[in-house]
């Protein structure tokens, strides 16, 4: 018997099982996380059905069903063990104070899903669930009753949305441009004053230019006011399920849906529209609603700048360490130090980035090149460039290590073969070793991108903000504005999930942002992998 057990142990079958279990457990964990994010994130876009519950006390509750649970610690007579309750998103925050409500299951008399109730997505106060009493224009009733009102409302909402777009355009593009020009002119005047040898005439010219810009500005602001008034032209009176009324301007409604009245195809269509609007729109309501486009843009742009910074830096360092430096104690110590650098907590890099890049480098740049803007800092404050550089610093060990691995994998025969043909060491490196090491370098880039996309802590010190007024890329020369602050998906998750006043209502947004962050990481990684495979093809096997 003992011998049999020993034989079994020695055969390694048990070990194989252990190994298999370890792999299975890891896969299960990763898969579970992804599944959780997918289910919660992807569910967000679906137009959920509305249920109308009639309670024992005769009141109604209308909303989206969000789940059922056994009431925890329910042992008192009023709450016997095993009693359940359901959670509903009831919206109407301005009337009820809270978006969510628990209802004990035994309080429910009946549940239906009436086809005539609608979900209104509003620009403020979250969703409203209910029916329409009347639509009016400046006090005159245009349509009354739920059915009539619904028909009248649809084109009005579209109009209002167009109007919003126009206002947005006017505000951001037209007035934004004027503001930009005014600021530029102010800086020019200041620059002339600082230089001390300006012609008074020049300044006067600039000042008249400013005057002109300001009159233009006034004009556009007047138009803006007119447009805003138009938004309030139509009003709608909504009633919630218990009959309480709420009057609001049609301009406040983003969209109105009757989810119980929608067919499957219609819902799918709406699903993709919702998905697209989250991807492409700006956030609203302290980021808890609307889209996350600026955060996606900021994340991707930051990673790109980081890649451009980290690759040459890391590759040069690795080449020096592996090819030029005398292999010995010092190089070994440096190598260990570099490896350990990868383990330094990222917040430490953040502090370093703030102290070195932002204050030291940025502050110096400001006094040297942007004195006219002072005391407002240009580069002397957090910005996308400094954040990217900080992350480049954070990820450079990864690139160095993989590049070194790539270099050491280049067979000695290639080096000797190249040298024997009369190449110098530099020529050999450029023409044979670098192409052979490219897969290793790009593997380093892939790892760096993966690490950098998920990093948040150092960014909070070096340039990420909750809401950035402008993207770091626009049509103003020089197009890339490295000094600007930016938004980031990882920070967005933190901010929406833990810093917003209405955490429960923001939960779906957290899942959606997480899902998109994961997707961005995957897309960025796949691009880097594709780049590596392309390069490998170009320089290796089928060198066409």
């Amino acid at each position, binding site marked *: 018997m003992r011998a049999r057990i020993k034989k079994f142990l020695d055969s390694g079958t048990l070990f194989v099982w252990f190994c298999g279990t370890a792999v299975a457990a890891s896969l299960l964990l990763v898969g579970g996380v992804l599944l959780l994010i997918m289910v919660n994130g992807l569910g967000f876009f679906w137009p959920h059905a509305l249920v109308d519950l009639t309670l024992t006390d005769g009141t109604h509750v209308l909303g989206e069903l969000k789940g059922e649970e056994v009431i925890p610690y329910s042992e008192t007579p009023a709450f016997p063990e095993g009693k359940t309750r359901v959670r509903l998103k009831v919206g109407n925050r301005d009337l009820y104070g809270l978006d969510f409500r628990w209802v004990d299951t035994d309080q429910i008399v009946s549940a239906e899903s009436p086809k005539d109730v609608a979900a209104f997505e509003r620009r403020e106060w979250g969703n409203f669930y209910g029916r329409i009493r009347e639509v009016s224009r400046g006090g005159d009733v245009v349509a009354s009753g739920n059915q009539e009102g619904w028909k009248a409302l649809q084109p009005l909402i579209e109009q209002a949305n167009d109007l919003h777009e126009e206002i947005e355009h006017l505000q951001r593009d037209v007035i934004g441009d004027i503001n930009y020009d005014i600021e530029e002119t102010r800086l020019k005047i200041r620059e002339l004053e600082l230089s001390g040898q300006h012609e008074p005439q020049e300044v006067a010219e600039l000042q008249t230019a400013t005057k002109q810009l300001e009159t233009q500005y006034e004009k556009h602001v007047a138009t803006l006011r007119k447009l805003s008034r138009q938004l309030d032209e139509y009003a709608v009176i909504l009633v919630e399920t218990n009959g309480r009324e709420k009057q609001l301007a049609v301009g406040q409604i983003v969209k109105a849906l009757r989810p119980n009245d929608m067919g499957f195809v219609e819902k799918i269509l709406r699903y993709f529209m919702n998905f697209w609007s989250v991807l492409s729109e700006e956030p609203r309501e302290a980021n808890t609603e609307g889209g996350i486009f600026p955060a996606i843009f900021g994340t991707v742009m930051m990673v790109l700048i980081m890649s451009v910074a980290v690759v040459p830096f890391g590759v040069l360092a690795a080449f020096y360490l592996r090819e030029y430096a*005398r*292999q010995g104690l010092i190089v070994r110590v440096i190598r260990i130090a570099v490896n350990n650098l990868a383990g330094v907590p990222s917040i430490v890099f953040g502090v370093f980035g703030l102290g070195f890049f932002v204050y030291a480098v940025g502050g110096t740049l400001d006094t040297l090149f942007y004195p006219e803007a002072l005391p407002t800092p240009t580069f002397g404050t957090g910005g996308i460039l400094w954040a990217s550089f900080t992350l480049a610093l954070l990820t450079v060990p990864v690139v160095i290590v993989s590049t070194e691995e790539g270099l050491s994998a280049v*067979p000695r*025969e*290639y*080096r*000797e*073969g*190249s*040298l*024997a*043909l*009369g*190449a*110098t060491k530099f*020529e050999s490196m450029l*023409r*044979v070793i670098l*192409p*052979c090491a490219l897969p290793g370098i790009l593997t380093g880039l892939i790892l760096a991108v993966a690490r950098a996309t998920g990093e948040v802590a150092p960014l909070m010190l070096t340039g990420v903000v909750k809401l950035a007024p402008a993207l770091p890329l626009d049509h103003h020369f020089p197009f890339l504005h490295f000094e600007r602050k930016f938004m980031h998906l990882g920070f967005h998750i933190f901010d929406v999930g833990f810093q917003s006043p209405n955490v429960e209502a923001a939960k779906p947004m957290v899942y959606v942002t997480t899902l998109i962050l994961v997707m961005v990481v995957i897309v960025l990684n796949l691009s880097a992998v594709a780049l590596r495979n392309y390069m490998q093809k170009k*320089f*290796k*096997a*089928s*060198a*066409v």
Partner: protein
Amino acid sequence: MQAAETTMASSERSQDNEHKLTVEDTDFFYGEKQALFKVALTVPTHHVTAFIGPSGCGKSTLLRCFNRLNDLVEGARVIGRICLDGKDIYDPSVDVTDLRTRVGMVFQKVNPFPKSIYQNVVYGPQLQGVRRRSVLDGIVEKSLQGAGLWEEVKDRLHHSALGLSGGQQQRLCIARALAVNPEVLLMDEPCSALDPISTAKIEELLHSLKEQLTVVIVTHNMQQAARISDLTGFFLMGELIEYAETKTIFTNPSDSRTEDYVTGRFG
């Protein structure tokens, strides 16, 4: 025609010097470890000279002194004189890259670059600044013909060199070395990893190559040395035991150790 021209040019180039390489009382050290002891020999022009001996006896070391590839090894030192055409190649005034274009090398481990066949051959000429496509095309054809590979690869010059068979890859390496028009070709066990047919092809090649240049070949295979070389040097533990005409070495060696080795009693 072209080959004849080259032959003439290279024979003119070295007619005045019968001894292409001369080694005078040379010691070689890898750090503390001495790998060559007082080696002295001369390599005649337009001949094939073979180095034989058991492994670890310093054949490769001596070969790699001829193109100064040993410079790469940290702590390597040469004491003595090694001359190419009467000029000391370890003189500080010598340009090493220049030396290496005059003294080409083919390695034991087949090492075409992971590039196309064409790019492999033009690697050396491009380093020397040849850019004209027509010139490069000519070099590629001539070198591949010189290495007996042209007919086999002329339709796939721009395919990867790694797609060739082992023997073809080794001949590509020879073509690559020929492309820079060297005066000496060093071959370090060029056939040790190849099948008999590929080996035969390369041996055949050597006969034509020696018309154009001087060949120094290291080999493990005594039959091979007997078949292809004009002179043979026998090394043992870093010492040159005997150096003479191949026929003499194999039929009537003067040292008993040489005799033991060539008759297969050790090694």
